[in-house]
């Protein structure tokens, strides 16, 4: 479900007229597949309103902000609609909030603490962004915290510092209509969500195993230039499924096969290392080089029966270097 958020009712007016949504509570309207709402002006109203909205209607997955913004550098054509890229926030007269939000658009926007009506503030803000509004950072902040997708589209209504509210009010309906038309165009052409890799049948996956499986699957598809189906076929999953073992054990085998396919050198090396360690194991001397077999870290365990056995084993260890157990890379 998507929500369209505005600062002022007049910005939303064309949307309300065309969609005729029902009012569900103060400033919030709902149609079958859309919420329309307005938050009031300024960072705090915006934050308060959107947090309430997202809390009350968890079915909202995506929020789009439409609204007016002023140009800080005078380089945008008036009445064009800009898709927003980065959103910054002015903290006080001479400081910016470090936290910013990157959206999918191109034009940078700064959310100011006040209306910009002096040249000094305009110059300062123009060093960070081309457009200024009063709310978008708050919407982006709330969306990020609740893992909602956020996009913002700003209609360049005037130049900062020249701001004449009465003029904008008189044009409000026409400006809202421009945003509505822009919305219709974008809405009919949404970008497709990323496809998640589905889990193969007949295996058992916990959440973390599923995550591991998807990671490996994605990497192997890229490495081999194939799709998921072709990949599973090449891994001979059918044979694994025919084994008379528990689904959990089948998953273990599948993941091991995938890991081996991704880094065969690592597996060959591991096997050779295990072979090199066998004579030591037989003497109850155990080396452990950690899961990634980095030679600079290792553990040694030794079992002994009595003092004599202890000393004999120590003597054997005295002349050995752990690195000598590592297979020679030239051999692989």
């Amino acid at each position, binding site marked *: 479900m998507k929500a369209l958020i505005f600062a002022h009712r007049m910005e939303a007016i064309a949307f309300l007229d065309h969609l005729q949504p029902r009012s569900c509570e103060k400033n919030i309207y709902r149609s079958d597949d859309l919420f329309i709402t307005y938050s009031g002006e300024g960072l705090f109203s915006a934050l308060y309103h959107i947090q309430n909205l997202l809390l009350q209607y968890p079915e909202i997955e995506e929020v789009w902000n439409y609204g007016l913004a002023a140009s800080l*550098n005078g*380089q945008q054509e008036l009445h064009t609609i800009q898709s927003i*890229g*980065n959103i*910054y926030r002015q903290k006080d007269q001479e*400081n*910016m*909030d*470090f*936290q*910013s939000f*990157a959206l999918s658009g*191109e034009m*940078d926007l700064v959310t100011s603490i006040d209306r910009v009506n002096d040249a000094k503030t305009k*110059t300062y803000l*123009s*060093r*960070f962004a081309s457009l200024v509004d009063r709310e978008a950072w708050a919407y982006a902040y709330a969306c990020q915290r609740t893992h909602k997708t956020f996009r913002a589209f700003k209609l360049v209504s005037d130049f900062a510092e020249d701001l004449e509210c009465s003029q904008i009010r008189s044009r409000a309906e026409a400006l809202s209509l421009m945003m509505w038309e822009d919305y219709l165009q974008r809405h009919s052409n949404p970008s497709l969500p990323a496809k998640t890799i589905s889990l193969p049948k007949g295996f058992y996956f916990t959440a973390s195993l599923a995550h591991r499986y998807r990671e490996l699957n*994605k*990497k*192997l*598809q*890229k*490495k081999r230039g194939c799709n998921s189906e072709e990949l599973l076929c090449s891994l001979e999953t059918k044979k694994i499924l025919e084994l008379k073992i528990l689904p959990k054990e089948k998953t273990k085998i599948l993941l091991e096969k995938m*890991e081996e396919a*991704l*880094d065969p*050198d*690592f597996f*060959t*090396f*591991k096997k050779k290392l295990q072979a090199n360690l066998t004579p030591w194991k037989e003497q109850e001397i155990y080396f452990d080089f950690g*899961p*990634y*077999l*980095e*030679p*600079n*870290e290792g553990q040694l365990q030794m079992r002994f029966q009595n003092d004599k056995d202890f000393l004999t084993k120590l003597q054997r260890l005295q002349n050995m270097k752990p690195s000598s157990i590592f*297979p020679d*890379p*030239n051999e*692989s």
Partner: protein
Amino acid sequence: MKVNKIFVEENLQGHESVSRFCESFPKAELHIIDQYENYFQKVKKPYLQKHNNNSIFLAEKRGNLVKAAPDAYGLSGEPHYYYIHAYNCMYECQYCYLQGYFQSPDLVFFLNHEDIVESIRRTYSEHPEGRMWFHAGEFSDSLALSHLSKELPIYFRAFQELPRAYLELRTKSANTKELEKLDPLENIIVSFSFSSHTAAKKYDLKTASISARIQAMYRLYTKGYRLALHLDPIIDSPNLFSDYQQALKELFEKIPANYFSYISLGVVRFTKDVFEQTARNYPESDMLAANFVKSFDNKVRYSKPLRDKILYNMRDMILRMGITKEKIYLCMED
């Protein structure tokens, strides 16, 4: 490169480089500011903003101008330093560590090269004996925009008087224009990051192609410049060795293999932060389609056996192509 804004520190307004940068990017807005530190990295800017929204800062570097380089930086046993003449790069290598290092991809060019040179001289005098190394390009490409920054003659003059000091200019560009105007010096080495045609095309976005780098090296070779190669970072791929062999063969047909002063070899590696950033910036890159593990120094690398295999085979290949053993060093490896 699309530059939207140029920021100039007010005391540098009359500097000759400022007009060169402004003329090269005539559409960029000019902002006169007090100090670049008040704007650069003051807000978090996404790395990929460099696609279409770059700012350039022309500033003075304050604080440490020369720093000791990390261990295993170059040929071992000698002190290595790098000097800071710029932050960030116009290129976009998918593995670049700058994407996790700065909080903004904006480019900063420091114009007070005389101060940097002074700092180099001081460091030089602290080591009264033996060779020492200075590297440019720790935070940027050394040559990519050298036709605008035009600082090279200052360093050439300085290094002429510092015979024990070696300067390495490291690049992925083919921009040798400024170097060609200067006379080569025995203690200035131009090193090129080099890989296969396929790898450079896939991962070294916006840099000069391998063919263009070979041409650039050849131009410098005919001028008598000392050259070096960095086969670093090597990224595993199905035809890794044959692809590298092909590119190296093309290079060594133009310039004898043993002409190169040294060759470094390094397998792709990341700090944890850079690795995460890379995965966010290039989620579809096949560079990430590998078994990456946390290695001996906490960096994210290929598993040890794969690293060893790559380094061993690569080393063996270049030895067979005529490079002597002493000239090869393994970069940032145990």
